[in-house]
């Protein structure tokens, strides 16, 4: 038998040629058989998908079919990969199929689905368009293209929104740092419903401010304290003439004239600029760091080794002035402690017995 003759050798005898043709036909029918076997396996269900892939692969390995038919093999294998969730393999097969025969619209469809699943939106759209060029009326492809384009729009919109949020937070973080405000770990998230500082139209900073009453463990929350407001103005509001004493203040010590405000000094450490950005954006308790942010004050994020002291707040100062003090590190938002000069608790508190 002339099995080992080189196909293009000069001296092929007619008998040898017949042998070669017979072999070729055998291989081709084997491939067709494998293809049909594969199709059968697919119909049998998920348990047999691996076998189906096996058949298609062996059929392809025969290399006995023409481009159009091999393309079909790849497209079929792509389909099974899709069903199994092997999107990368599915895409590869679909692309192979298209290379062999660009009119293979099924391959375009399957390739687009695989690309979409992989998040390759632009490739998915390209494949749809390729298919629609061959069959402009193909409903399935048109529908798929519409779905993908929608997804692309949604994704772009979400990206743009996030980018805008980040940009706003960066501006806010810069302004906070420019004002000389030191922000430390947010310790009071639950008491303040994750409220954050904000900028008004004139680019003035507004802070949510927490007032704590150590004597009674009560608290007050000032929703909007503009940086240039004085403490006096807000105290007038809270302890005004027509406001009743708090229920826990049986001795009526907490009146406008008797209240005093304090902050705790050096309650570090400070957040880095990246952490500050994370805090402003995410509102989580322990801020994750946002990378790629310049950190000018890196050495300041060392734990504060200085003494914690109670510092009194002159009520005619503005919030801006008190926040800018170098020893003042706010726990996410400004927190001030309210005491009464008329209560014996005052001295206890200041001498550190609290």
């Amino acid at each position: 038998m002339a099995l080992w003759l080189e196909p293009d050798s000069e001296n092929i005898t007619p008998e040898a040629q017949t042998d070669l043709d017979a072999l070729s036909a055998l291989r081709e029918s084997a491939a067709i058989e494998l293809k049909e076997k594969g199709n059968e396996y697919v119909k049998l269900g998920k348990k047999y998908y691996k076998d189906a892939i096996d058949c298609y692969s062996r059929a392809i390995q025969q290399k006995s079919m023409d481009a159009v038919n091999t393309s079909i093999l790849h497209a079929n294998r792509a389909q099974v990969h899709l069903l199994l969730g092997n999107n990368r393999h599915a895409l590869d097969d679909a692309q192979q199929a298209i290379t062999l025969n660009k009119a293979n619209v099924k391959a375009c469809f399957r390739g687009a689905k695989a690309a979409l699943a992989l998040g390759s939106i632009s490739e998915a759209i390209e494949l749809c368009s390729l298919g629609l060029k061959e069959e402009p009326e193909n409903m399935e492809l048109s529908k798929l293209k519409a779905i993908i384009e929608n997804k692309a729009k949604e994704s772009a919109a979400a990206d743009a929104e996030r980018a805008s949020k980040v940009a706003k937070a960066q501006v806010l973080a810069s302004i906070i740092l420019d004002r000389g405000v030191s922000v430390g770990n947010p310790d009071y998230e639950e008491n303040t419903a994750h409220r954050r500082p904000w900028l008004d139209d004139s680019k003035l900073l507004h802070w949510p401010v927490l007032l704590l009453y150590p004597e009674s463990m009560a608290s007050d929350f000032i929703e909007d304290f503009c940086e240039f407001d004085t403490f006096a103005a807000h105290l007038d509001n809270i302890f005004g003439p027509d406001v009743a004493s708090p229920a826990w203040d049986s001795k009526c010590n907490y009146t406008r004239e008797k209240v005093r405000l304090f902050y705790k000094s050096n309650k570090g450490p400070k957040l880095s600029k990246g952490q500050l950005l994370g805090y402003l954006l995410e509102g989580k308790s322990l801020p994750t760091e946002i990378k790629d942010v310049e950190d000018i004050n890196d050495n300041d994020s060392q734990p504060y080794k200085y003494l914690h002291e109670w510092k009194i707040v002159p009520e005619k100062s503005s919030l801006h002035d008190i926040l800018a003090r170098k020893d003042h590190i706010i726990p996410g938002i400004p927190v001030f402690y309210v005491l009464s000069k008329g209560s014996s608790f005052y001295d206890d508190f200041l001498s550190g017995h609290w």
Partner: protein
Amino acid sequence: MATELDELIGFLSSPSPQEARKSIIEALVNLSQVPKLGEFIIQKGGIEKSMELIGGQVQILNQLLTLLIVNLTQSDLGVKRLLQEADKLEGLYVRKLVRLFSKASEGVEDYYEHVASILVNVTQRESGRRLILDPKKGLLKQILPHSDSTSLVRRKGVISTVRNCCFEAENELASILSVSQYLWPALLLPLAGKQIFRKEDTSKMPLELANPLSHERESEGESCIRIEAAEALYLIARHEGGRKALWSVNGPRILQIGYEDEEDHEVMEAYERLGSLLVNEGIVHES
């Protein structure tokens, strides 16, 4: 003429006896009053040369140099050169001038008082206003306390400079209010008249206002200064944040009392404009 001027400016850089230098600078001061000649001097490096020499030992020269720069900064070109725009050292000249202006001691002859007039010229340009307002540079903080100087030139210059800067209130309100401690005395005391304020009014003011207003004092005699102070306040009060801040130091009460004693019609009009702005715009306020 051109070549003579060239020579004159040239003499400035080369070592010359003090008397010669003095005469040269005096000549330049006179010549620079003519706009075209001023421009020529600027183009030949007049600003840069002056800034090189200023701050030296001979005080009379310093005074003449400030006068020269005042004249040269009447033109936009002069201001640009003084601001060193688009230069890596942007703002360095102005900062040097403000430093010299602030250090000058009272009682002795005031050699740097005319820096106040230079600053008025500088703040004609937006970049100049922004430089003065920049909180990181702290220039406004250094300038404002001179608003009650005995030198009229200083007082006038400071108030005009602040008034010019207030044109940036829309974008720089925070920078303006960040120096409140010095700003309100500078703008409100000239408009407070002569009356001694009562405790019920001063108790609502910060110390820097309450103290002077509780005592006998000289009121601001120059009507143009009172007008410019009112204008500056107007520019600030156009914004809600500015009005709130003004109310928080009991500003409107100061204006109300000061207005009672005002006799100059132009100044009264300025009070009235400011007053109606405060009343009409209004904010939620505890009186």
